């Protein structure tokens, strides 16, 4: 242990003795590691906002719609589809909406022509929908059991629609669905993974059946899978809903597209990584070169150390340790520099900084490895020196 401490002490002393030279050969590992950390950090951070959004939204939401099999118009899911899907063990929550066709929504007296031409979708929803979507109610409340039991004519507006109608939070507002007045009880926050819902009006199952004479069969289902089981649940839904006739149910994972676009540009990343490795390799050559010269210049020191009893292997190790310390400090400095560059560029470009700190030991280790490799030749040269030849006796 004390031998190791002595070795490290001597190596650090040797490095500090020639500060300018040490800084110069440290540039290789510094630039190399900074380039690699920067390459990965910048390419990842460029997509950082998407990644952050993906983290926030999660990747566990699955939607299911009735397939457009031949001979079916306005296809719907079976009435007990939600119950069946909930039977899948990995499903945490599920909810369904039923589209109510042919309803004209009027937010106020005027604009009837417009809203007849571009009708607002009206959806019959159950009480669990916000929980499945993991989206809060922006103001007011969601449709609940009391609305169904008491047969209230209550609606919840999608976040986008509320903005469009100019709804002030807390405002008492009535809208007209096919001439029937409905009270707005709440506004659902926007649903980034399912923007269709932002412009919808949500009513209860009772209202759909009573006021608009539909059967209220679900047209779309929202399923939340347990973390990590999305694919598995995705595959299980058609089986659960229609016992294997998979063409009758179409599933989709809304986050998949986002996930794909959040992938960093691999080609760019690899190119920059390669440039970093190249810098590291060239830096290694620099270390080997400068240290070889250094061994010649320090032959008297080597000779005297050998005369004082230091063995060949310890002399070699001393120079190897010098290379190691150069690689280590250079690597750490490069990592810090790389992180700084990523943070700076991200701040300027308005990116979310994405840096995998767990990779830092790998980058620094790479720098140390290259430096030690570069130090092998000069170290061997130092160890081979004959003390008698370097001490100039007589």
């Amino acid at each position, binding site marked *: 242990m*004390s*031998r190791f*401490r*002595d*070795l490290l002490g*001597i190596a650090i*002393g*040797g490095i*500090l*003795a*020639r500060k300018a030279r040490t800084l110069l050969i440290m540039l290789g590992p510094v630039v190399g590691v900074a380039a690699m950390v920067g390459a990965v950090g910048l390419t990842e951070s460029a997509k950082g906002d998407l990644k952050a959004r993906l983290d926030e939204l999660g990747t566990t939401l699955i939607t299911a719609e009735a397939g457009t099999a031949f001979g079916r118009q306005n296809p719907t899911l079976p009435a007990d589809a939600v119950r069946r899907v909930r039977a899948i063990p990995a499903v945490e929550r599920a909810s369904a909406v039923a589209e109510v066709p042919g309803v004209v929504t009027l937010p106020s007296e005027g604009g009837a022509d417009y809203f007849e031409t571009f009708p607002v979708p009206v959806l019959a929803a159950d009480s669990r929908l916000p929980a499945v979507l993991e989206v809060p109610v922006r103001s007011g409340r969601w449709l609940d059991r009391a609305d169904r039991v008491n047969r209230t004519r209550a609606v919840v507006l999608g976040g986008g629609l509320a903005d469009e109608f100019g709804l002030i939070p807390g405002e008492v507002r009535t809208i007209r669905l096919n001439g029937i007045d409905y009270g707005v009880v709440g506004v659902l926050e926007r649903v980034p993974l399912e923007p269709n819902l932002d412009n919808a009006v949500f009513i209860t199952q009772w209202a759909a059946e009573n006021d608009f004479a539909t059967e209220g069969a679900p047209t779309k289902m929202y399923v939340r899978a347990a973390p990590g089981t999305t694919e598995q649940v995705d595959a299980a839904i058609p089986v659960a809903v229609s016992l294997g006739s998979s063409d009758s149910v179409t599933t989709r994972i809304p986050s998949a597209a986002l996930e794909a676009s959040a992938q960093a540009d691999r080609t760019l990343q690899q190119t920059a990584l390669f440039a970093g490795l190249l810098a590291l390799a060239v830096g290694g050559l620099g270390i080997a070169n400068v240290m070889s010269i250094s061994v010649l210049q320090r032959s*008297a*020191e080597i*000779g*005297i*150390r*050998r*005369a*004082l*009893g*230091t*063995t*060949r*292997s*310890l002399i070699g190790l001393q120079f190897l340790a010098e290379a190691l310390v150069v690689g280590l400090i250079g690597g750490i400095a490069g990592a810090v520099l790389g992180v700084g560059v990523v943070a700076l560029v991200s701040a300027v470009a308005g990116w979310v900084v994405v840096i995998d700190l767990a990779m830092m030991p790998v980058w620094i280790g790479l720098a140390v490895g290259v430096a030690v490799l570069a130090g092998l030749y000069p170290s061997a040269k130092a160890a081979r020196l004959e*003390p*008698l030849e370097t*001490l*100039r*006796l*007589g």
Partner: protein
Amino acid sequence: MHTPASGPVGGEPLLELVGASRVFGQEAPVHALRDVTLQVRAGDHLAIIGPSGSGKSTMLGLLGVLDRPTEGAVVVTGHDTAALADDERSRLRGEVIGFVFQQFHLIPYLTALGNVETALCYRGLARAERRERALAALAEVGLADRADHRPVQLSGGEQQRVAIARAIVTEPRLVLADEPTGALDTVNAVLVMDIFARLAQADRALILVTHDPRIAATTNRVVSMRDGRIVSDVAQAPTPFVAEGSGVAP
């Protein structure tokens, strides 16, 4: 002509050359040392003198276990150096021998203290103990107040005294000095030789390789060499080192 030393003989043998020869090169071999036999005991204060090319340096290499004879044996404190591996010879040097060189050979980027401590590296010593012993050695050569100076901040004489401190800090049985005053002016040479006089102790052998007869005069035994052979080995009464021009001939 081989006269056994008659000085303070009786100490244990520290160093023995038995029929040692050293030949350099193979195609045109140079016989630097021919069949030399020499015994150095504790208490010997020995000067090896001779003109350049007489084999002094080769001898020093063999005595210092920096080199091995091509024939014969070099035995240091009972170890036949030819039979030792390279690492073992390194350790033997570190344990038994202290070197002082004409060119001092201090490590330029270390302080005086650091240079002395160099001799104590890889010995499993605690840092504090190493420092303490190095400071004591510096005090012994009168340079305690120069501990933090680098070699360039020291005069030649001071550098050589640091080198002596480095040589003795390990308490070696054998001190080898190669022209220790060769690069010094007279005043500093006197100082250095004073220290050597103090180093000559009964449990230690001190070997000075020199061509300066005034240095040889300070020893109790003089080995003269010529053409790779020992031509005389005589005991004498040591006289103090005398500066040039003082009118006293050695």
